[in-house]
């Protein structure tokens, strides 16, 4: 992905081969609604939305070496704001979407201000605590958030009410956002993030302002999480504290890890794996959280490099 190619064969920063693959993937994804039931299209939409969330976590985890356990809350703040503004504020969905992403970005920047000075376990601890404070506020601030019952609102603009139409809109959005994130992590700025991941002290002595870079990286990642949250508001037309709960952050992290840390697009594979698993499990039992917990433990023990990484390791071990 990062291999330098001659300038002439590049388009929008992508190599010829990368461009072909990306176009093919988007085209195949665009054709999906023609062959799937409307329930499955809904599932595919959900996969795309959570793929964006998992990718936003991967920006930090894979490229800056900091795994955030608070991104579910950033995501959920956007969902809350969008639903609240359309339902209670009777605002146009489009303005609500923009404000939702803005709110998520603001929250992310506050998180970032506090978190950039920490690393390792402390970063986990802090983002977790910050995310849970958001959850606590959403749960208790009943007048505004509706407390445990959550809020309902018709968020989806009229043009996107159809299941397939909405899927295509989300797909277009996901493609654009993925491209933006890919450019971001491969930009000179993204390279400095990788430098910080590999050796913070070296980057500091080279004269880079490490906290500032991390702050910007975190905030940008928050924008993307906010976009995912706003799309989720349209998808669900409903929001409750479980949208900002720890489980949301954790699912996002799990998707990111399952897809492979630092692979960026692996996030969609991880999201697909977890969401499909969730649906299969939910059709048999109500104990999804238990299965999620066990999945988490198993992945940590047996496949911390992610599903794709694990498969690659398994296949390469076979003699050819």
């Amino acid at each position, binding site marked *: 992905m990062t291999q330098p190619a001659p300038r002439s064969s590049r388009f929008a920063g992508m190599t010829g081969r990368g461009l072909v693959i990306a176009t093919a993937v988007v085209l195949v994804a665009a054709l999906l609604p023609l062959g799937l039931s409307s329930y499955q299209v809904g599932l595919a939409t959900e996969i795309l939305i959570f793929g964006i969330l998992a990718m936003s976590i991967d920006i930090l985890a894979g490229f800056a070496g900091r795994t955030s356990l608070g991104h579910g809350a950033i995501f959920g703040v956007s969902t809350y704001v969008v639903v609240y503004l359309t339902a209670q504020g009777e605002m146009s969905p489009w303005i609500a979407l923009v404000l939702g992403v803005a709110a998520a970005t603001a929250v992310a920047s506050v998180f970032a201000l506090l978190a950039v000075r*920490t690393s390792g*376990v*402390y970063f986990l601890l802090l983002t977790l605590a910050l995310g849970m404070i958001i959850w606590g506020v959403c749960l*208790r601030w009943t007048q505004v958030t509706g407390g445990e019952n959550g809020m309902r609102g018709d968020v989806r603009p009229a043009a996107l009410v159809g299941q397939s139409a909405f899927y295509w809109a989300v797909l277009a959005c996901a493609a654009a956002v993925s491209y933006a994130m890919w450019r971001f992590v491969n930009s000179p700025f993204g390279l400095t993030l990788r430098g910080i991941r590999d050796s913070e002290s070296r980057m500091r002595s080279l004269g880079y302002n490490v906290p500032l870079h991390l702050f910007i990286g975190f905030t940008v990642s928050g924008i993307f999480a906010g976009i995912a949250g706003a799309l989720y508001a349209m998808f669900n037309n409903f929001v409750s504290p479980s949208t900002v709960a720890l489980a949301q952050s*954790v699912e996002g992290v799990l998707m990111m890890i399952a897809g492979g840390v630092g692979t960026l697009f692996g996030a969609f594979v991880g999201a697909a794996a977890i969401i499909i698993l969730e649906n299969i499990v939910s059709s048999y039992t109500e104990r999804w*959280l238990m299965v999620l*917990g066990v999945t988490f*433990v198993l992945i940590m*023990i047996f496949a911390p490099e992610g599903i794709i990484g694990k498969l690659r390791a398994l296949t390469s071990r076979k003699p050819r």
Partner: protein
Amino acid sequence: MSLFQILNGLTFAALLFVVASGFTLIFGLLRIVNLAHGALYLFGGYIGYTVAIKTGSFLVGGIGAMAAIAAIGFVLDQGLLRFVRGNELRQVLLTLGVAFFLNDLALVIWGGDSFTVPIPELLRGGTRVFGTFYPIYRLFVLVTGILVFIGLWVLLNHTRLGALIRAGVDDAEMVEASGVNIRRVFLFTFLFGSALAGLGGLMGGAFLSLYPSADAEILTFSLAVVIIGGRGSLVGVAVGSLLVGLLNTLGQVMFPELAYFVIFGPMAVLLAFRPLGLFGRAT
């Protein structure tokens, strides 16, 4: 704040201290952020409740809760965490998976209703404290918190085991190199820290009651305590618990719906100046 509210804050701080001291012991020595600690608290509460109801004894309930949670801690440490030793991130995320599992398991076993652990006859009713009528049980929690603090203080500062734990917090490898079986000290600390979560569960279960999201709430408070106090510091936990306990009560009095935000303030200010907490040290 009236005296009544200050006492409420202090008793909550005492409970937080019991729970968070176990958390920080494990965090300080083993470098594991045990995110299942909240779930252990909740489980301890439920088990203590069940045992106390069956036997009719609060004390037996407490012993049962501590023993059962220590046993769960044993399985967690020896059965699962051993596979991911040396990798902090994987350890933390693994305990998170365990937390989800335990939380859901508790929902299966005890359902979604909230329970209150019955208070023993001796501790029921109230008494006058400086002219304010106050429940005896909550004073009992306060005293227990202080006793646990003293006990831990003596354990850490005046016993050989405590010396090993303190040495391990500073440099586990050197302790091992000097011929001590640090693994055993690790295991003991893990079980002991877990048992404290179980004790906290029973104590908290009698005045905060037990319900499915209680584990996440207590975990948030414990994290705040440890972030404020610093890793592995007993005094840090005590100061952190007092701060968080009193601020939370103040918050509930002044802005009932936004109480959570009030603990966020000092955490934010503190982190800006001391990223490792009040009593935390760089390793």
